[in-house]
């Protein structure tokens, strides 16, 4: 008799705990792999902050962000109000660490999708791991062409890539040479890992085909202590435009070396990345006036959705949202929109939903023409603007339809 009573009580208690667990909506785990330490740590930490803001927007309703998918809902409606939980991993800029962290997130943390990884040299091997395990991966920032050129099915990329940037620069420089500013020769100065080599090569080929003359290409090691030789080579060839494909430390060093050697090309184009890192403007902004950059991010007018997002990010970090972190935030939104639309955390359902993504420009925070993926997972509607550093802000100068200002020529720098 007493045994039956004990059994009964235990069963009732088990029943209650089961009910309690069933009541709590599930959590959707997403793994994000970025360089949170090492030379690109500042950029990685900025992306982390941006994605945390995005997760917060998704998990709590924000009526003023209603035009963005999942902006006005608390959690994901098609998944019973499930909240997103982001698990960050640090690859330290090291490709093999990137691979092992990917494996850990998939097999141990059991994430349903991944995002990352800034360094193209890490994204390339890490996405191969995700492909093997059939886990969807969103590339929000890396620009190497190799990432989607391998016939993979699980890798989706919302961001513009090397070829988009090359076309933007071609358009910008062609429009420029139609005006009174004569631009004929260019130089490519690229760091020599996957990012610099592939994007630099792409820009070089597109510009040469577009009729511009390559004065010199200067590949260099991103971790150099001294870049005087590189700058002296540029000085010798004296191109009209020098395009830099650099990470943060080298972007800083180049700018300082220009001042030290009292030389700069007539136009300095910094291909985002190092030049968009908040540390760049903070440390050398005053001697880099007029540096040209690319961006798909525009803060917009006060009261607009983009302005409000920037305010949230600024409240968290103290600085404005930069282009790279913004593109990652956009990638994250696109990923969660697809998962919500799938209404399931099954990998194949998510993959199918991602492949069918069709977001219009009005549903985006970045200035893309939309998000629609082709068969290789690339966003065919990704686009970018060209901007220029004036004071402490980058001002959009091209294309005309999006410009807030016009080009200042030549590069002022510290003068």
């Amino acid at each position, binding site marked *: 008799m007493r045994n039956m009573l004990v059994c009964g009580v235990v069963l009732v208690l088990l029943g209650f705990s089961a009910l309690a667990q069933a009541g709590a909506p599930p959590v959707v785990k997403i793994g994000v792999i970025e360089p949170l330490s090492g030379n690109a*740590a*500042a950029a990685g930490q900025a992306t982390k902050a941006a994605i945390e803001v995005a997760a917060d927007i998704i998990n709590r309703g924000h009526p003023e962000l209603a035009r963005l998918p999942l902006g006005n809902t608390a959690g994901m409606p098609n998944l019973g109000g499930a909240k997103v939980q982001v698990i960050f991993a640090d690859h330290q800029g090291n490709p093999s660490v990137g691979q092992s962290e990917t494996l850990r997130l998939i097999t141990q943390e059991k994430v349903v999708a991944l995002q990352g990884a800034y360094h193209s040299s890490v994204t390339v091997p890490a996405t191969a791991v995700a492909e093997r395990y059939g886990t969807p991966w969103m590339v929000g920032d890396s620009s190497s062409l190799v990432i989607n050129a391998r016939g993979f099915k699980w890798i989706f990329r919302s961001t513009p890539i090397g070829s988009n940037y090359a076309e933007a620069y071609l358009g910008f420089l062609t429009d420029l040479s139609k005006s009174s500013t004569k631009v004929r020769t260019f130089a490519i100065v690229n760091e020599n890992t996957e990012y610099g080599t592939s994007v630099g090569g792409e820009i070089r080929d597109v510009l040469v085909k577009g009729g511009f003359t390559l004065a010199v290409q200067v*590949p260099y090691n991103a971790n150099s202590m001294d870049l005087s030789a590189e700058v002296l080579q540029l000085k010798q060839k004296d191109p009209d435009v020098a395009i830099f494909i650099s990470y943060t430390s080298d972007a800083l060093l180049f700018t300082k070396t220009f001042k*030290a*050697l009292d030389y700069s090309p007539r136009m300095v184009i910094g291909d985002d990345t190092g030049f968009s890192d908040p540390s760049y403007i903070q440390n050398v902004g005053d001697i880099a006036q007029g540096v040209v950059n690319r961006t798909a991010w525009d803060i917009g007018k006060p009261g607009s959705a983009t302005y409000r997002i920037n305010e949230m990010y600024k409240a968290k970090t103290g600085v404005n949202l930069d282009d790279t972190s913004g593109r990652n935030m956009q990638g994250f939104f696109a990923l969660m929109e697809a998962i919500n639309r799938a209404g399931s955390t099954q990998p194949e359902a998510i993959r199918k939903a991602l492949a069918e993504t069709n977001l219009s420009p009005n549903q985006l925070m970045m200035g893309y023409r939309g998000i629609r993926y082709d068969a290789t997972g690339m966003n065919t509607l990704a686009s970018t603007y060209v901007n220029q550093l004036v004071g402490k802000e980058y001002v959009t100068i091209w294309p005309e339809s999006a410009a807030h200002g016009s080009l200042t020529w030549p590069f002022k720098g510290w003068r």
Partner: protein
Amino acid sequence: MIALQVVVGGLLLGAVYALFSSGLTLIWGMMNVVNFAHGDFVMLGMYIAYLAVVALHAGPLVFTLLAALTLSILGAVVYYLLIRQVMRGPMLAQILSTFGLALLIRYTVFWFFSATFVTLPGSALGGSIKLGGILIGIPQLVAGILAMGLTIGMHLLLTRTTLGSQILAVSEDRQAAMLMGIRPDRMQALAWGLASASAGVAGALIATFYYLTPTVGESLVLIAFVVVCFGGFGSVPGAMLAGLIIGLIQAASAYYIGPVYKDVVVFALFVAILWVRPQGLLGTV
């Protein structure tokens, strides 16, 4: 003209390499301890200079002295608390302990300063001067000259003073030194203090023209190892010579062959020299 610019730039950078490598070679030669944390000592010197400028508005002389003083105390403390125990253990323990120390220092600085790159605000050593048609950055010039002076000074200290002889005696034969009334522990702590102080000064000087980030020690320590092996273990003039040569070769190969090959040339030459002369340029077998 550009050739001269390349040469001068290379030599100045090489002098800085020499300074922070001389500390490493002293410890390595004296105690057979490979200090993997050496690059991070240099990084600490950089951050101390930064703090001194930001909090105390210190000038270059003050922050360099401050860095030297703080790092010398740290070096002695590290010796007494860590190295002295670890030296009694196997070689692997020694290597791993200094490696662990490196990570500890690096990530403690990361904790306090975060990863954002900082540069020394409005240093009095800004700008460049034109000497005979070439442009030399004033921070690099001062750093180079001071580095050379300090390295020579360290060499003179070790070879011309009683204290220096005592330090060298301990490294040569610990038992005999003890018999002569020299206290080995004290001398080794002093050597650590001296080596760390030189790392601190190197860091403070580098901070005037380079950026600061907690991981900057990683790349510096690699250069230091090459300079030490090239110059000979335990030889401070060797480190000086090797530093200058490597700085020069790097600059010249970067300009004439291609910047991406500068490390290839340096390391190829390094392997070649070690093949012909394994004890390094000025090392004793």
